[in-house]
């Protein structure tokens, strides 16, 4: 079990009914595996079905065809636009998933405070989302996901809604969290350099409908130098595939 991939996607196709009753094929026979403890990214142009695939993995939508094998019990997600609840404080947002699971208040408090501390929001526990910057809101989203102690952490373009400085800082933090917890991360992004900087494996999807075009193992040493020739070479290679 431990050597088995944590996630197996086999022959996934997905169609949906658009306006005017037109059937759109979003994904066609997508197959790949995610190994336990690795950082995997799915990259591709807009409309290639990356986010649809993520939602199929999360069980939010049902694929038209194919199978998803989930060899994990706990997963969590970090959303592109944070998706934290505006009526809850930072602390209440972070403990939300635990509360829904029926974890005792004492245990919730311990875990939530630990995760809030980990993402650097200890002074902001009682603030509401509207009182926080975009970067801080995403940190709440990260803490909420970490509080679930997930085996598989899914991230849907987690840095897209942020300014460049905040995105850089948060990328380093995610990298640190991944190293510290050795959890499995599956990230969806349209930024190839972001995927190369963070991932062990990059799955490239092509659009219309989304199919797996290639899988690239990234063997550059960590921490990665985004200005090194090897880094550029890899980014250019993947960009050429998508073009």
């Amino acid at each position, binding site marked *: 079990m431990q050597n088995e991939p944590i996630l197996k996607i086999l022959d996934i196709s997905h169609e949906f009914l658009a306006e005017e009753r037109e059937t759109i094929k979003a994904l066609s026979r997508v197959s790949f595996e995610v190994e336990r403890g690795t950082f995997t990214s799915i990259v591709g142009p807009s409309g290639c079905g990356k986010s649809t695939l993520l939602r199929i993995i999360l069980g939010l939508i049902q694929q038209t065809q194919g199978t998803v094998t989930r060899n994990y019990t706990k997963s969590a*997600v970090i959303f592109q636009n944070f*998706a934290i609840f505006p009526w809850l404080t930072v602390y209440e947002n972070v403990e939300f*998933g635990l509360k*829904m*699971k029926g974890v005792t208040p004492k245990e919730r408090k311990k875990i939530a405070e630990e995760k809030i501390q980990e993402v650097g929001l200890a002074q902001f526990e009682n603030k509401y989302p*509207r009182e926080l910057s975009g970067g801080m809101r995403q940190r709440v989203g990260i803490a909420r996901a970490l509080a679930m102690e997930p085996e598989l952490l899914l991230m849907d373009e987690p840095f897209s809604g942020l300014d460049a400085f905040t995105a850089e800082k948060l990328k380093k933090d995610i990298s640190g969290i991944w190293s510290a917890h050795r959890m499995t991360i599956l990230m969806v992004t349209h930024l190839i350099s972001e995927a190369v900087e963070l991932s062990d494996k990059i799955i490239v999807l092509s659009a219309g409908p989304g199919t797996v075009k290639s899988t690239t193992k990234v063997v550059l040493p960590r921490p990665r130098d985004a200005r090194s020739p090897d880094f550029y070479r890899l980014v250019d290679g993947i960009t050429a595939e998508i073009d």
Partner: protein
Amino acid sequence: MVHASHGLKIYSKKYHVFTALGVFLLPILFLFLIGGLSHVHTQDLAAGIGLSLYRLLLAYAVSLALGVSIAILIGYSSWASSLVPVFDVLQNVPSFALIPVFAILFGYTNAMAIIFAASSIIWPILFYVLNAIKTARSELNEAATVFGAIGLKRIFHYLIPLSFPAIITSSIVGISIGWEAVIGVEIIGLKNGVGVFLNHASILGDRTTLLAGILGILILVFSINKLIWMPLLKKAQYYAE
């Protein structure tokens, strides 16, 4: 007052308590004053306003419970969405056209006044709350699902807080429609209430009594706004993105 599920303090400062007490006392002071300065029967006026307020509050409670429940049901299940056109047609029926129907069913009774007012108040509540649920960001819905807000937990920990600003604004609109409905049906066919008080004053040509009645309603409406809706509206800002 503390919001049960989220610990939101609605009256957190002494200022609110003083304001609340002050505006609560205003209608009483007004009645004493008007009684002392004129021939207006303040006891009749107080009884009339009290009875109308009682009818309004009961009608509002029924509308709130039904409106929010139906909106959540429609927002929650796909089959219930097919009911929206039915409710859309129903809400377009002029409410006063229903008075003869309710009169046949219940007679001009207290219950009839409450049901008639509820039939007017329910629409803004139902449609505002439904709109809040239907227009919520899909990511927020997904986050609620992924983090375990399903079944009854989804209603209490997600859908109701999500709808809270809409519940407050629609309640303000609904209560004002409710006053019209209650006073209207009292004038048309009931034997008591502030509508009847105003109607008698009008028939007798007693302008002082008429003015006292209208001022009494205004002061009560102002008190309710200041005491209940304004603090809730302020807190509702925290529920909106």
